[in-house]
């Protein structure tokens, strides 16, 4: 079907745009119309059309050539046909010079326009085929949701495949943002537990008593405020997987409790007398050097060995730079859809910039950077300029204070900027802090042109 191909017909004359659109629709193209250059540019910002038919003379506002130049700035790959009522060599030459692929004098022969559109579509199909092959390639290098062709990561995939079906405890170690939770989920999925619960808990975020009740649950009246029985994460995980993130941060008393559960595979709810069998697989993760913590006495040695039955070490992004192009490609594919932006790829110099960056926050930081660039990019290809914020974030971030004499818009703009800087460009986290949803944040970033 042709319906995947999108065409925009731009003409101030209603009869002209309506009838051409109707004629093209009979060929199963998805055809939209715009009555002015401005409208066309606005529509092109929302949807990446494959072909644009633009009338040269369109008063008032911006004319056909200007419209084409605006659109080409955002979508260098788009095919633009300039349509005019009179054939003059001058306008034809200037249209072609500015990047029009074709110049048509109306009325034109149905054969001419039909052959032209078919030729363009054939070429674009080939391009799409190439993109498809590239995506297939990235699937070849992916395991569950993790993408890599790096030998260390390939070894991790192999290990995960091998031990996924077992119940032995797994300890995943790696710097923050290296994908520890993804590996835990991959273990869960690949081990045939996909239909069972995967329950995650970050041990760093909670106070000791709260963490205890989160893990083991409690009976009604077990402590002040325990107004009802509550099931703990171990129980909720059933015979699935419980993922204990930042295990290196749990307090000494809980280290002992956890050790007991791992040894005996049974436990009590807080304040309870009914023994509960623990059936879940335990996967723990940390970005700390646990062995050093054992040596300094912060972490129990016996618990360490209980957890470390199978050890998975994740490399930093610096150690697997060759994955950056694959990862960027995959992120663009997903994030462009999520953010509803017409981004399809990345320019060479922008990719080089990403390859050279240090990525202290690893894959997650890379993902955040791509997300931010996708949201703010003006074209369908991410350019080096779309990643300016990386250089800016590297500089010292100043504290934000409210100076006098600012409009509400200006204050809002600065607030959004400040929060984005603090979250390292993480849209989701920033939206949460600001108390707005992601799409609203996207809108504000675009409105205030924040990274520019």
């Amino acid at each position, binding site marked *: 079907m042709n319906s995947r191909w999108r065409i925009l017909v731009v003409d101030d004359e209603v009869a002209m745009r309506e*009838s*051409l659109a109707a*004629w093209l629709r*009979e060929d199963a193209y998805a055809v939209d119309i715009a009555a002015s250059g401005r409208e066309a540019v606005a529509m092109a910002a929302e949807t990446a059309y494959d072909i644009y038919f633009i009338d040269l003379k369109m008063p008032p506002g911006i004319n056909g050539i200007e419209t084409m130049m605006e659109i080409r700035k955002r979508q260098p790959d788009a095919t633009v046909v300039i349509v005019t009522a009179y054939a003059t060599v001058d306008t034809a030459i200037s249209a072609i010079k500015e990047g029009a692929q074709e110049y048509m004098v109306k*009325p034109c022969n*149905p054969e001419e326009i039909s052959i032209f559109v078919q030729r363009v579509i054939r070429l674009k199909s080939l391009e799409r085929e190439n993109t498809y092959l590239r995506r297939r390639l990235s699937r070849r290098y992916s395991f569950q949701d993790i993408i890599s062709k790096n030998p260390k990561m390939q070894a991790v995939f192999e290990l995960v495949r091998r031990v996924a079906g077992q119940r032995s405890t797994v300890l995943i170690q790696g710097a923050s943002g290296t994908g520890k939770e993804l590996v835990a989920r991959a273990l869960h999925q690949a081990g045939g537990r996909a239909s069972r619960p995967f329950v995650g808990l970050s041990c760093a975020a909670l106070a000791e008593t709260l963490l205890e009740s989160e893990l083991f649950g409690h009976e009604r009246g077990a402590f002040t405020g325990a107004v009802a029985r509550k099931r703990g994460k171990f129980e909720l995980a059933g015979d699935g997987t419980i993922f204990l993130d930042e295990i290196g941060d749990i307090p000494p008393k809980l280290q002992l409790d956890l050790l007991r559960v791992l040894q005996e595979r049974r436990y009590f709810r807080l304040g309870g007398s009914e023994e509960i069998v623990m059936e879940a697989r335990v996967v723990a993760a940390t970005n700390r050097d646990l062995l050093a913590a054992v040596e300094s006495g912060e972490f129990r040695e016996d618990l360490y060995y209980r957890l470390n039955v199978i050890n998975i070490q994740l490399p930093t992004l610096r150690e697997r730079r060759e994955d950056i192009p694959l990862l960027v490609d995959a992120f663009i594919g997903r994030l462009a859809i999520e953010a509803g932006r017409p981004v399809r790829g990345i320019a060479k110099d922008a990719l080089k910039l990403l390859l050279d960056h240090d990525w202290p926050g690893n894959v997650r930081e890379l993902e955040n950077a791509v997300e931010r660039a996708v949201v703010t990019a003006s074209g369908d290809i991410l350019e080096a300029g779309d990643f300016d914020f990386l250089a800016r974030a590297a500089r010292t971030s100043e504290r934000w204070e409210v100076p006098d004499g600012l409009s509400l818009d200006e204050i809002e703009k600065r607030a959004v900027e400040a929060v984005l800087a603090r979250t390292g460009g993480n849209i989701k986290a920033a939206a949460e802090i600001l108390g707005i949803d992601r799409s609203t944040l996207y809108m504000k970033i675009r409105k205030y042109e924040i990274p520019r």
Partner: protein
Amino acid sequence: MLLCLLPTAGVQAGDLAGAGALAADVFGFEVRTLPPLAVPDATFDARRGQHDSSLVLATALDLCPPDATRLLVLTGLDLAIPMLTFVFGQAQLDGRGAIVSLARLRPEFYGLPPAPAVLAERLRKEVLHELGHTCGLVHCTDQGCAMSLSVNIVFIDRKKARLCRDCGARLAARLETMRRGADPAEE
């Protein structure tokens, strides 16, 4: 399901009969022929010496009886749209109205002697094509299928007055839903 056949002045009874027979045979329409349409001057572009097919079709649709499922205009006028030098016909995709012109189907247009059988066959192809559009069919890549795009008379003569298997199946499914009373064109 009622199809109203609306001729303009100059269309012969034989042309109407041929178009009506195809609409009845292929689509199962009950066919009613309306009194000829007086085409308004405003639809004529004197500079080009042609009528604007969108405007003629719009005029006809205004006069169409409400109980008609489809309206087919048959005209001897040479039709065009602003972007194209001519059209053999035009249809509302998934819509109610279609128009077919005899002007460029006649051998005389190409300097050849009249040939009623040739004209009748070409007319059947174009009626099938445009009514097919009103039932949601889009252009087909099978050059022998009536739904393939014809940009000149050679293309019309190359195709047959019937649908390929895919288009035929699509039309059958669509007619089935229409018979059950659900026609996207009426929404």
